């Protein structure tokens, strides 16, 4: 009996959710400047441009009204395992005594917004959607010892200092009532892998529509060859490193022979 009731409830809620989406009757048409960021020997970061348009839902026939829309773009990098450690000076020596490993932690997390987050919607909504840098450590499993909440805060701070986490208020600019664009500078230490860019459309404090795109950051040419051979044939790679070192040392000796 209870099972049937809860199922009914779910059904009703789903229908309500569907209705509310339909009521908004807007969708996002979004794109980004490149789907592959190539990393070569002179790579020193790259700027990506996101752009899009707020459009009426297909078939709804209701034109986009008002100019109180807000866009939030979340760019997230591949998941990695991060460890954060804390030094304490208990025994007269400063040692790492606390450490936590965050498994599946986003290696890159940047928010671009058209207004300060507080003006767009309630903070609890962003938090629930995992849309804040500070909510990331709470969303991934962690193992280890030490105070979880303080280590999590420090991890976010360290990521922000490395330019890998952050929020850019007014990073999204409306070119017209419905057309927006945003640019994001990927730093030179950007992790390699697959990224997702989620675009969220907010109106009057509510999430109206969203759209997901992806792009990848990958090495090309010589850098790609080095990266893949170091992983696929490590022993050969190691011997090549030694041979290169011996050759370089020998060549130096020959050139500078006195």
């Amino acid at each position: 009996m209870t099972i049937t009731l809860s199922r009914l409830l779910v059904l009703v809620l789903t229908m309500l959710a569907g209705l509310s989406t339909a009521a908004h009757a807007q969708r996002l048409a979004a794109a980004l400047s490149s789907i592959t960021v190539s990393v070569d020997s002179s790579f020193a970061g790259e700027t990506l441009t996101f752009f899009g348009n707020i459009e009426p839902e297909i078939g709804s026939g209701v034109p986009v009204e008002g100019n109180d829309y807000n866009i939030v773009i979340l760019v997230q990098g591949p998941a990695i395992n991060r460890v954060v450690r804390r030094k304490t000076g208990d025994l007269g020596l400063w040692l790492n005594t606390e450490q936590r490993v965050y498994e599946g932690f986003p290696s890159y997390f940047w928010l671009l917004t058209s207004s300060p987050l507080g003006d767009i919607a309630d903070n609890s909504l962003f938090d629930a959607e995992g849309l804040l840098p500070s909510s990331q450590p709470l969303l991934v499993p962690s193992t280890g010892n030490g105070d979880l909440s303080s280590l999590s805060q420090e991890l976010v701070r360290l990521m922000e200092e490395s330019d890998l986490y952050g929020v850019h208020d007014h990073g999204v600019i409306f070119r017209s009532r419905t057309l927006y664009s945003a640019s994001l500078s990927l730093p030179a230490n950007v992790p390699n892998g697959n990224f997702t860019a989620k675009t969220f459309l907010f109106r009057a404090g509510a999430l109206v529509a969203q759209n997901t795109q992806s792009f990848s950051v990958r090495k090309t040419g010589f850098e790609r060859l080095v990266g893949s051979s170091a992983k696929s044939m490590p022993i050969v790679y190691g011997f090549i490193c030694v041979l290169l070192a011996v050759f370089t040392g020998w060549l130096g000796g020959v050139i500078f022979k006195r």
Partner: protein
Amino acid sequence: MQIYLPIAELSVNLFFLVGVGGAVGFLSGLFGIGGGFLLTPLLIFTGIPAPVAVASVTGQVVAASTSGALSYWRRDGIDFHLAIYLVIAGIFGAFGGVSAFSWLRQLGQLDLVISISYVVFLGSVGGLMFFEAARSLLRRRAGVVVRDKLPGQHNWIHGLPLRIRFKRSKLYVSVLPVLLIGASIGFLGSLLGIGGGFILVPALIYLLRVPGNVVIGTSLIQVLAIMAASTVLHAYSSQSVDILLAFCLMVGSVIGAQFGASAGQYLRGDQLRALLAIIVLAVAIRFAVTLLFAPSDPFSMATLAAGVGL
């Protein structure tokens, strides 16, 4: 000019890398040390992840020692007979060091052991060398004639059994201390990620009484062999050897080492030892400071390779 390092996955100034390599290479040619104990902390300070810095420096040390060893070989400054005994024992020691490395990592105390070892070994070796060299310099200044080979210098080590004649070193000494020294350096080198020249050179001088004209060349052979083995081990176990980073450092250090080796000929042995002692002591003090004083940021983060637990 920025250059992107494919394994470290960040970009660094090319001239900085070659310059740092050159400076450390000069010292390595001058003193017959690999320079790893200087270069690794410098790279980590630049922002290169610690595993990549440690692993890539081993590659650089191979190049620097090859270049230095060649230069001593031309001057007949290597005792190959002695070197073979050291290298064979050293490779056995390196296997022990690698096992200790993974055991300590399981216990979560690797950082601690490395820091304390740096302070203890660099501090004691540097301190001993400094006092010995200072005393020798003062006596020379006071007009006392100091000969390179002192009479009655034989110590208890020379009374051990299984003696072997090392012609080039003019030594007739037991093989046991030779093997023990070689194995210890191999163990420490692979555990601490250093060539160990700064420990090996004083050990050969003070324990075995290897003459000054072959001690550096012979130690370079040992460092070369141990670091070549470590490079392959690092490439296999952690895949963190950045060949481009290592190459930039190599080019700088090979050039620097040539100047260092020739500059070394204009300095007397005790002067060289005093200078090396000061550098070794400075690094030991630097590590002691990080252990004893509150860091500006007690928190640090690192990336763990997939599948590596605590």
